[in-house]
């Protein structure tokens, strides 16, 4: 489907799909860190491929990222990203320590964030799959610790082979009282957008 042809109503429906996934993921995250996790209302962007490196802070912002490919009835990608300091704060919360205790993003910290990202991604996709009556599973997430723009661009390159724009559903999680902010990007392939929309009666 051509992204320019999406109606306002369809965009709203996709945003709603994102909200349901995000709500589920936030519940999982708040159980992990044992405190309330707030969600910003998910945003949906139809984004020109050339603007991609700029959508998460500056392109050179140092982030931890975990990427999973969608398997099953729909194709596409999910990318979890958290800025370095917020990621360290998140690992402190998981250990029941005061955020700010960890100062180095070592192997242990990255392994822990990888674990959190896997759970968030699975929770997010499970909710979407259940709502749309689809079979969707994530591949084992692959991780990176580097510039945000480079991670986004690498994930969106495949979409760029077919289209000039991508639909990106973004969710920001904020652990209550802390500045531990993380984001999840859901990037369905253009064909899979049609599949999702038809399953929820919005085709």
């Amino acid at each position, binding site marked *: 489907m051509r992204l320019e042809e999406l109606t306002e109503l369809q965009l709203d429906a996709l945003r709603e799909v994102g909200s349901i996934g995000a709500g589920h993921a936030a519940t999982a995250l708040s159980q992990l860190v044992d405190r309330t996790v707030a969600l910003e209302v998910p945003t949906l962007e139809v984004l020109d491929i*050339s603007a991609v490196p700029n959508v998460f802070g500056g392109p050179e912002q140092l982030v931890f990222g975990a990427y999973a490919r969608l398997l099953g009835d729909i194709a596409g990608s999910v990318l979890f990203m958290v800025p370095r300091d917020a990621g360290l704060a998140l690992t402190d919360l998981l250990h029941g320590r005061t955020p700010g205790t960890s100062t180095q993003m070592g192997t242990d910290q990255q392994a822990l964030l990888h674990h959190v990202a896997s759970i968030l991604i699975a929770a997010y996709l499970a909710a979407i799959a259940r709502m749309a009556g689809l079979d969707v599973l994530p591949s084992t997430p692959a991780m990176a610790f580097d510039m945000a723009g480079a991670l986004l661009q690498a994930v969106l390159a495949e979409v760029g082979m077919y289209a000039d724009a991508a639909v990106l559903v973004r969710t920001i999680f904020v652990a209550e009282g802390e500045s531990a902010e993380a984001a999840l990007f859901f990037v369905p392939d253009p064909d899979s957008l049609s599949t999702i929309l038809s399953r929820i009666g919005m085709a």
Partner: protein
Amino acid sequence: MDPSGLFSPDPELIEVGVGGLVVAEHPKRLFTPALGSCVALALWNPARGTGAMAHIMLPQPAPGAGPTHGGRFATFAVPELVRMMTKDGTKPRRLIAKIAGGAAMFRGEVAIANIGRRNIAEVKHQLSLMSVPLVAEDTGEGHARTVELLLDSGVMVVRSYQFGVRRI
């Protein structure tokens, strides 16, 4: 290293976004932040102190893909950038080319690693078709790069969190 310093307003610094093809002259500098699997191609004319940069995302469009902006594909961007740099009658073999990028950004992710590798291969192939000599590269590996092309010297400055500054 101070990556954010690159974003202080500098009238001489021209950013080349994904798919961008830009020609410039000293004292301007061409730069591309946060290359992952993308490849930055720099062309430089030593005789004139002019240069150009392309920000390439993919080797070629998918077969049968609809209308697309050609600049992000190596098969279009490389010949087009060479054409832009030889409009004044300069022979392509008098230019020099340098490339950076094409990394495998996610550990254990094969498909994305392949995109980077194929980008590097296609850019090199296109350069050889156009008879432009490739004199230096900082490609592959697993880290992001920010590149800047200095047009008085043709030096490509490559910055990364992992290795700091490399000049090629």
